[in-house]
């Protein structure tokens, strides 16, 4: 029983962080048809901005987190305006944007390294204490991460399913020309998606930094995992990304417990490869994304 609780808490905490990151990636793929290789950098930027606001400006947590999220959203918007929009109409966009965002990620990592060095700072966002369940200590920090993820995923779900903006994002993802013919300003939709993706990455990064440490490359591993989740879910399927993130986090925790930390991820990848052979378009995916 203790083991089950331990694995569940650990797995669901991972799931929450992966879900936010993967949903951001899935949105950009769905709407723009782009693989954003700078998504991991967005995680790091959000974390470092939050760290700086707290340590340099002395802002409280309730102010620092929203500020960091908004600034990361603006970074996403700027990336759209300065890079994505300039490349978007070219037929080679899908390849060019991968190169451009890899460059952006490296630039971001080196800029952070120049300003903060490689010292693994701790994010000064700690929720002390916890409670015991069947003898297992469960930190409030993990519960906060999971609760925040569920709330944010719910908000993204409401945004996409119930609002006019969300319907415009979904319509653009499904067919850009049809969305335009309904009067949807798709350029504005792309900008909104990049901003939302930046915000979600920041939350994910801040969460991650509270249970590990800050580092310029802290977003790389979560980004790879988010890509895997997005591919297994089916590129561009936001709801699918959420469910696969939950499964992925839980499986990772189970594998870590069963096979050890070193073997868990490679074994998980084997499972991913098998699932992609079985379902090449992912579990929830459609065959293609139209971008013209």
């Amino acid at each position, binding site marked *: 029983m203790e083991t089950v609780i331990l694995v569940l808490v650990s797995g669901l905490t991972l799931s929450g962080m992966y879900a936010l990151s993967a949903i951001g990636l899935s949105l950009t793929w769905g709407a723009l048809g782009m693989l954003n290789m700078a998504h991991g950098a967005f995680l790091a930027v959000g974390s470092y901005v939050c760290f700086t606001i707290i340590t340099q400006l002395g802002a409280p947590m309730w102010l620092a987190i929203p500020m960091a999220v908004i600034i990361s959203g603006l970074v996403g918007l700027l990336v759209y305006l300065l890079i994505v929009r300039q490349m978007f109409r070219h037929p080679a966009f899908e390849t060019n944007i991968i190169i451009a965002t890899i460059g952006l990620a490296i630039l971001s990592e080196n800029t952070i390294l120049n300003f903060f060095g490689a010292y693994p700072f701790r994010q000064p966002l700690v929720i002390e204490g916890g409670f015991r369940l069947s003898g297992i200590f469960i930190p409030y920090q993990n519960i906060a991460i999971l609760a925040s993820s569920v709330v944010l995923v719910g908000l993204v779900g409401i945004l996409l399913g119930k609002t006019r903006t969300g*319907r415009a994002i979904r*319509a653009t993802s499904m067919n850009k020309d049809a969305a335009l*013919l*309904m*009067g*949807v300003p*798709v350029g504005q939709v792309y900008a909104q998606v990049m901003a939302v993706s930046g915000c979600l990455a920041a939350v994910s990064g801040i969460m991650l930094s509270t249970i590990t440490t800050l580092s310029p490359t802290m977003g790389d591993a979560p980004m790879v995992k988010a890509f895997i989740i997005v591919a297994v879910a089916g590129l561009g399927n936001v709801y699918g990304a959420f469910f696969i993130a939950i499964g992925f986090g839980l499986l990772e925790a189970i594998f870590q417990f069963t096979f050890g930390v070193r073997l868990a991820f490679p074994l998980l990848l084997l499972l991913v490869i098998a699932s992609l052979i079985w379902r090449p378009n992912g579990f929830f995916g459609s065959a293609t994304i139209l971008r013209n």
Partner: protein
Amino acid sequence: MGESFLTLKNICCGYNSVDVIKGVSIDIPRGAVVGLVGPNGHGKTTLLRAISGLVRLRSGSIKLRGETISELSADRVVARGVAHMPQGDLVFPQMSVRENLLMGAYLPAARADSAKQLEYVHNLFPKLSERTEQLASGLSGGERRMLGIGRGLMTKSELIMIDEPSLGLAPLMIEHIYDVIRALKAEGRTLIVVEENVSRLTDLADELHLLDDGHVVWSGGGADLMSDDVLMKTYLGG
């Protein structure tokens, strides 16, 4: 017929380096029904895409009610009152029928009247009212066509452009779609219909334009075209 409503003046456009429309001028009065006919791949669909702003002009101009719209993006052309129901319907597959229809009322002017418009579309296509919560991906070809046209009508546009309304449909469904088009004509809407089967337009259209290789090679009434054996054999396989 009313005053000039839509004016295409010597327009040229295409894709990448290929010119598809090579200098087309058409004047459409308000309330007219205009048919675009001609062989496949000679520019009918591209002409509609140019009017709705999906394809940029290389030269020439398009004016709607005297205002130049050829510089506007497609979303702004819709806001001026142009509904384009494209070939292949382009419904949103992962949205319900209702959500698809409401996307037609995305712009504020249409949204204000969306409930009334929804009722109007349901009256034209009662089948859609039985399928409101069904995903568009699960609809039959005929139902998708109804949804595509219904969604376009939700925009409350004055100018309605329908690309190949009968393509791939069973005869009964074609009749139903053309009954709706006749109803739209009776309401006084301005219509442009692209159609492979000329006979469907002969009684309906006030004027037909025959497109060949990006040029209008003939314009006139449906009966005139049908009785011209040379034109029919040369361009329309008849």
